[in-house]
């Protein structure tokens, strides 16, 4: 068993604080993106370009009255936002942020912990993410909060299935459950998204639903449920809920980039590594190459965070029955088909060509059979 060293501790703490910092600045970028899309100015009072806006928000949240409903379940009411934050932070433990750092002749992985079941851990914690919302919504002792919580739970359960089956297809292509092994297989530009285009779309849709982001933010749809599960929350407890949502977005973007977009891999990474090793020596060159990989990974993460925001300010919210129909009648059958195609492609010997032939056959069959289905049973 490896012994823990001070470098590991520093890496874990850095990952922790970087996730918090990025989550805080996501709130700022959300406003900037929203302002850009709606042709407004956006935050520009607090600091240059409004860069201190997250700090101002946090202060505002802290100084507000912390209100608790008279008939609320006191303990659970406090536990709800805490649990939401806790589960949001747990996932980043197994995400490989970068390759490895060589310090003092020893190699340290830029990752919280490398386990051989990493992707299952992510999946398990995502499944737990709903408890914070569920408990908080119930403990508020308010009908609208309860409805929001119930909606969150049901959409979470429904989309978890399709998400799990998309992950199974990924596991089949990479033959490992460790996130690091999955990432390392996508060396260079050998990314999984080329093998799994349909799986990626399914996973992305489910990720939106699991994060309760628009167009699936039914748990807090303000035109039906006031504010959903956090109706009764105020002050920093509300802040924790919102913060947990942004943390989830960050972690989900990281998971998507790891599974489908190669994590810290980028085209030409071998050349960069060789050149840097030639320029700066074995150890320093390797470390700098690792940091370049980190940069590539964070670029991908920021792109997906931007995608989350882009969709939020572009696509209107689904109706609740549409959400359920899309999940159960649309995505789950698609995920099963994707699984079958992936399995066949793996067995055929050439996963890439086999996968695309399978997808083409599926599309032809689907287009031919679509007019034969009854209009009533169609999804959406």
């Amino acid at each position: 068993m490896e012994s823990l060293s001070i470098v590991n501790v520093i890496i874990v703490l850095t990952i922790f604080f970087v996730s918090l910092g990025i989550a805080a600045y996501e709130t700022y970028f959300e406003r900037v993106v929203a302002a850009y899309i709606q042709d407004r100015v956006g935050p520009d009072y607090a600091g240059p370009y409004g860069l201190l806006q997250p700090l101002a928000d946090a202060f505002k949240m802290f100084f507000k009255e912390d209100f608790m409903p008279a008939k609320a379940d006191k303990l659970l009411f406090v536990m709800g936002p805490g649990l939401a934050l806790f589960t949001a932070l747990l996932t980043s433990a197994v995400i490989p942020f970068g390759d490895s750092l060589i310090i003092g002749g020893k190699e340290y992985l830029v990752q919280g912990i490398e386990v051989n079941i990493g992707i299952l851990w992510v999946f398990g914690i995502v499944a737990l993410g709903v408890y914070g919302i569920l408990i908080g919504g119930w403990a508020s002792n308010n009908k609208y909060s309860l409805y929001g919580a119930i909606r969150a739970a049901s959409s979470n359960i429904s989309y978890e299935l399709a998400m799990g089956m998309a992950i199974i297809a990924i596991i089949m292509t990479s033959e490992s459950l460790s996130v690091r092994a999955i990432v390392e297989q996508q060396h260079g530009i050998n990314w999984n998204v080329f093998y799994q285009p349909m799986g990626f779309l399914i996973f992305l849709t489910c990720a939106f639903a699991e994060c309760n982001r628009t167009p699936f933010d039914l748990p807090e749809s303000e035109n039906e449920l006031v504010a959903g599960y956090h109706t009764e929350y105020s002050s920093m407890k509300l802040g924790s809920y919102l913060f947990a949502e942004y943390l989830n977005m960050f972690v989900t973007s990281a998971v998507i980039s790891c599974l489908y977009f190669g994590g810290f891999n980028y085209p030409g990474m071998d050349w960069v590594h060789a050149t840097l090793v030639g320029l700066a020596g074995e150890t320093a060159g390797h470390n700098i190459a690792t940091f370049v990989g980190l940069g590539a990974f964070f670029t991908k993460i920021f792109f997906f965070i931007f995608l989350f925001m882009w969709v939020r300010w572009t696509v209107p919210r689904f109706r609740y029955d549409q959400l359920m129909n899309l999940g159960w009648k649309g995505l789950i059958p698609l995920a099963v088909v994707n699984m079958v195609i992936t399995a066949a492609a793996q067995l055929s010997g050439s996963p890439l060509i086999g996968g695309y032939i399978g997808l083409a056959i599926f599309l032809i069959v689907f287009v031919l059979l679509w007019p034969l289905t009854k209009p009533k049973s169609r999804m959406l």
Partner: protein
Amino acid sequence: MFSLSSIQWAFYILAILTLFGGLGTIMSKNPIHSVLYLILTFFSLSAHYILMNAQFLAVVNIIVYAGAIMVLFLFVIMFLNMKEQEANELKKNSTIIAASIVGGTIGIILVAMFRQVQTQPTNPNFYDSQIGMIESLGKFLYKDYILPFELVSILFLVAMVGAVMLGSKAKGERDF
């Protein structure tokens, strides 16, 4: 007492946590609290699995029990909206008598079992610490135990079809 290794400390703390969760499950009057204690129990059980180097079992326990089944439990109980006095069945005499008979029987069976069963201590020199890892688990399941595994899958399929049958609407029945 204080010469325990860190693994032993972890084990005892987890054991206390598990028992606390189990007791809380049966002793709290509010059904929602019961479910939450049960989730705590599942979590500490998963931690026990990790202590025994069975990571796959631990994570599957979290995904299936703590993640899916308990969410459904919470879901249903929240909809039922039980009041605390409705759950107070322990006041009835018949319930108390039945509970003590069942509890006593189980206790006797447990004691008899512990006296009968001779636990074989495993030899630490020949013990394969990787036995709980997913690779060896998969090899066991798909090589040595393929028939039971397939039979269990058929059982699951039948259960799924049954659930769909129960849940499907009869003709002309409305949604709400």
